């Protein structure tokens, strides 16, 4: 199995890009990332875009995008794992190189979440749940976050006010991220009094709707060295599937994450306190649970430790950097790459590991990407 490196990364600011379509958004980051890696053309293109069929009315988006960008005859494939599609695209790219099937793979995450009014987008994004059992019966993702939050508050005797710390911190972090969608401070009171989504979840407990594009060049050793830039090793990308919420024994647990982090610690000697993280905080309550499942904080007490976290979601996370669904997983890897290689938002991480976590729904599936600095 061959080593896989990140040779370059690129992203655009997350926003409502009404004046640009997916081809234009993707075009910007693809051009930038190919130049950055000093490659002529990739061997393979892996694309992630959660709303390809719904908002964009486009099947086989990977091929259409590749045709548009003039990259023939390069083969292209689109990956769909719901909200974690971006990291799944990295997973496939990693697999292609490590198996020797490609030397250079372009990963593109692109999302146009604003092509339709929000209430239509909300219907589309609810389809990450089981259509026949959940969606048709009027259940939507924020409902699950709300049920989980209520159970968590009851179980660990945590108040609604105490759980406002995460969004507040994310907005603070985003102030230093030029790519973030929301760049304004908020207070605990603003979180509590924001529009009700599914009580006790308010608008400021969840991600904004926005468009984005991010790209990476993953490469084998011989290609990576040619770029002349410091390179980061993609040690592994692992994933797992969890049960639907109504079949869980404990709805405050995200079991896939626990399984995956345990595997990474065992296999690669991953050390929790020697890493910089980007986690999938689609809802603030999920952030608290993810921190606990990763072992960064004690169960039921992660809210107490948020204030002291320096190297978690420096970008502002899904809450404030934004959640351009299919692109998010690619943004996260790009952000960790930047913090480790050159610094970002006034933060530089000189340690060993980078870990990104991407998931769909309430941990319907979760994926972890382990990055490692090589000397």
């Amino acid at each position, binding site marked *: 199995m061959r080593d896989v490196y990140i040779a370059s990364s690129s992203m655009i600011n997350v926003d409502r890009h009404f004046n640009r379509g997916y081809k234009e958004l993707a075009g910007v980051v693809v051009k930038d990332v190919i130049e950055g890696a000093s490659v002529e053309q990739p061997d393979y293109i892996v694309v992630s875009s959660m709303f390809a069929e719904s908002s964009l009315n486009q099947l086989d988006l990977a091929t259409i995008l590749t045709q548009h960008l003039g990259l023939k005859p390069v083969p292209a494939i689109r990956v769909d794992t719901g909200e974690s599609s971006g990291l799944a695209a990295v997973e496939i790219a990693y697999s292609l190189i490590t198996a020797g099937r490609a030397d250079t793979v372009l990963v593109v995450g692109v999302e146009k979440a604003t092509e339709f009014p929000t209430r239509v987008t909300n219907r589309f994004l609810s389809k990450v749940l089981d259509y026949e059992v959940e969606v048709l019966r009027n259940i939507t993702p924020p409902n699950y976050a*709300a049920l989980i939050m209520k159970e968590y508050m009851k179980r660990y005797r945590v108040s609604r006010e105490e759980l406002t710390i995460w969004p507040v911190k994310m907005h603070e972090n985003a102030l230093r991220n030029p790519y973030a969608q929301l760049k304004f401070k908020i207070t605990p009171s603003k979180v509590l009094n924001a529009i009700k989504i*599914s*009580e006790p979840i308010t608008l400021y407990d969840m991600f904004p709707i926005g468009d984005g594009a991010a790209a990476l060049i993953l490469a084998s050793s011989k290609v990576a060295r040619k770029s002349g830039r410091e390179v980061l090793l993609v040690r592994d990308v692992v994933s797992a599937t969890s049960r639907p919420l109504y079949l869980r024994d404990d709805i405050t647990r995200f079991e896939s994450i626990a399984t995956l982090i345990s595997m990474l610690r065992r296999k690669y000697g991953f050390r929790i306190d020697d890493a910089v993280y980007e986690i999938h905080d689609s809802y603030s309550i999920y952030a608290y649970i993810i921190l606990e499942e990763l072992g960064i904080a004690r169960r039921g007490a992660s809210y107490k430790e948020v204030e002291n976290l320096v190297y978690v979601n420096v970008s502002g996370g899904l809450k404030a950097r934004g959640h351009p669904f299919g692109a998010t997983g690619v943004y996260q890897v790009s952000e960790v790459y930047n913090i480790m290689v050159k610094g970002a938002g006034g933060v530089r991480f000189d340690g060993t590991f980078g870990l990104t976590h991407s998931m769909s729904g309430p941990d319907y599936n979760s994926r972890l990407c382990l990055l490692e600095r090589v000397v």
Partner: protein
Amino acid sequence: MRSSISIFWRKKDSYYKVLLTRCKRCGRASFFARDVCPYCGSSDVSIVESSGRGRVVSYTVSYFRTDSNEEYLPLIIALVRLDEGVYVTGELRDVEPAEVREGMEVETVLRRYSSDDPYGLIYYGLKFIPVIKRG
């Protein structure tokens, strides 16, 4: 046409009755009629009909707007523990949000889920309502 008529016809038993899948291999029961146990993957399963009665374990009042549910907002999504010990998530109707209590007894009725506006198909299915105690 938003949803498939075929799906509703094919799954009418599951949408118009509360059906559970009972697994002979692992012994667990789960909501919705399936041919595979979602706990262990075994196809050695049998379908049983639930009374549709249970108690509210938890609930949330939802204001999350989609172009399918707009006319029903706010709606209440409840996590219900059926008398058979199986958990279900579903909509709770005929009760004001302020009146919902954890532990409340509920039963199942046929209601409208959504419709293709304005002249299209209407999709029906089961929802929970409080059991009214005669005093």
